[in-house]
């Protein structure tokens, strides 16, 4: 792997957006000279002093302000310091931003960046996956990039889109995931398209965000046992690319949906129920789900590793699926 990290991609995309589009501005806590809690905006305030603005600790106002600016034709990018804190801006996201176009016919193209997911020692309030909570609401676009190239291209596309986008970036990938280049040579897939990241024929694992990498590692492991596992990266959970998933299940006959989210509802339930409603006859075995445990995300690494799906638990779930 190369030297460009996932967080570099996010920073570069924002740099590119600010350079090429005067409607873009960034607003968030500590995003200015400090460069953001995760350094995703490092150096940008120097280059664009009037369009990179530190906000007070007021998530409700941050989103309200972004919607107002969007109504005036701007393309605000709001950085939540952690996705978990968007719970305080929840109302403005689901009721102000999401309903705006439906009610008034005027778009509110805001992009909210939400650093999500678990890392060791982060605990219940700095680890949450909230994509499904927001995906429930009509009017929002919910993206979950899992690669460096997607982190870049999907952020560019988020801002281009005329609708409110919640861009869930995974903190675990920030510095761990590296690539040679910002763009992977291929044309980026359009928003809303899933990608088959590994071809196989015995079972399909559908994953998104950091879990794509755990799923790929599990598929590697299973390969050594003679199984060919197909892995689909959803990329976008709303819209959700049912076609690509069902096409994969058509090839493999078996489905495991994996998420780092809490187990009630969420992306895996939506995936499984769409596949069974629309592709029931393709299934050779009951489709399965694997999520985190139904408790807050624990602080201690021992507990945390047993809380979310891992290479091992995914591999075990696949083995189980293959025997059903």
């Amino acid at each position, binding site marked *: 792997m190369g030297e460009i990290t996932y967080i570099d991609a996010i920073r570069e995309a924002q740099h590119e957006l600010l350079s090429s589009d005067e409607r873009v501005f960034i607003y968030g806590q500590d995003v200015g000279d400090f460069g953001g809690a995760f350094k995703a905006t490092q150096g940008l305030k120097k280059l664009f002093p009037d369009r990179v603005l530190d906000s007070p600790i007021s998530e409700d106002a941050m989103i*309200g302000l972004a919607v107002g600016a969007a109504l005036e034709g701007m393309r605000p990018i709001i950085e939540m310091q952690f996705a978990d804190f968007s719970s305080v801006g929840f109302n403005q996201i689901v009721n102000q931003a999401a309903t705006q176009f439906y009610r008034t016919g005027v778009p509110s193209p805001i992009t909210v960046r939400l650093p999500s997911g678990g890392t060791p020692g982060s605990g219940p309030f700095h680890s949450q996956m909230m994509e499904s909570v927001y995906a429930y609401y009509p009017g929002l676009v919910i993206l979950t990039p899992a690669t460096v190239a997607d982190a870049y291209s999907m952020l560019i596309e988020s801002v281009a889109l005329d609708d409110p986008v919640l861009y869930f970036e995974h903190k675990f990938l920030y510095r761990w995931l590296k690539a040679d280049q910002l763009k992977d040579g291929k044309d980026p897939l359009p928003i809303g398209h899933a990608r088959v990241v590994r071809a196989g024929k015995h079972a399909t694992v559908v994953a998104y965000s950091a879990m794509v990498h755990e799923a790929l590692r599990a598929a590697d492991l299973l390969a050594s046992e003679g199984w060919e596992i197909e892995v689909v990266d959803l990329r976008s959970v709303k819209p959700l690319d049912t076609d690509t998933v069902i096409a994969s299940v058509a090839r493999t006959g078996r489905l495991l949906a994996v998420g780092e989210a809490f187990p009630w509802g969420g992306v895996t339930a939506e995936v499984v129920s769409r596949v069974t409603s629309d592709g029931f006859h393709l299934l050779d075995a009951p489709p399965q789900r694997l999520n985190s445990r139904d408790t807050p995300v624990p602080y201690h690494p021992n507990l945390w590793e047993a809380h979310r799906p891992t290479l091992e638990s995914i591999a075990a779930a696949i083995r189980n699926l293959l025997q059903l």
Partner: protein
Amino acid sequence: MPELERDSKAAKVAETWESQLRRTFRAMVVARTLESKLASLYKAGKIVGGVYIGPGQEAISASIGSCLSWDHDIFSALIRDQAGRTAFGEPMLDATRSYLGSVKGPSRGRDGNIHRGRPNNGLPAMISHLGAMVSVVAGMLLARRIKGCLDGVVGAASVGDGASSTGSFHEAMNTAAVENLPLVVVLTNNQFAYSTPNDRQFACKSLVDRAVGYGVPGYEVDGTDLSATLRVISKAVSNAREGGGPQLVVANALRLSGHGEHDDASYVPEKLRNSPVGRDCMEVAEQQLLSTGLITDAELLEWKKEAAEEVQAAVAQAQKEPAPDPFADDWAVYASTEIAPVS
């Protein structure tokens, strides 16, 4: 109503105080007429959902609207702001169509009653969640600053005593103050939030005491007195226009209706109704304009007649228009056509 149509900043600058007072009062007359009609339509079962009106608060509301220019300034109207909407320049048909469910209304029947607006003309459409619109107005102003066209622009947001208890209100006030935006927040203390009286809503002497905590100028005014109210709101608006940053105006009045037309407001004590805050601003304003010769009895009668005709026409027009048709509506919730709906 040609006097309501002036909307350029230039015209406003040149306008005399007397002319603005007349214009503001005329919006009050129109709003009162319209809202009374809406209330009877509700009672006659012609309106589905709720009807929320602002009798007793027209002086405050109209004063906001009359200080602002359509297509230039910004106004976030709330549930009792028919007078402000009228004075600001919202077409009356927007109101009747929204209430009567015409598909030609600004939200095509998707939303109704006071949840209407024209964001592209500076009138964002309120969501119900109290306090939530203040930061939206702040964001509209911030956008104009970034775009370099904030000069001479003001954004006004209407809130109530109840809304002042929301975190949303607080965050927006503070954020606007930090950004020094030309935001005028007019807080109508009408003594009640639904049935809840002031003493269960806040413990400060006056809500204007909040201003210093945000570092913004605060004003308190008797909202039943049109001339005093218009003077204070005009001052706050021109301070903001001239770079003075956010302004907080607290205007006191009594809600002379129920919370909505379903509510008889029997919890409002008789004593309060008979106290100075319970005065009807319409009567006060009429007296003010008549006694100072700014208007004659005949002219007033004529205004009322014209208002009644305008309302009648707007109601008739909305009533004869088709209701939304679920098969004709495209149910589009995304502006980007590439985003397909889920089902």
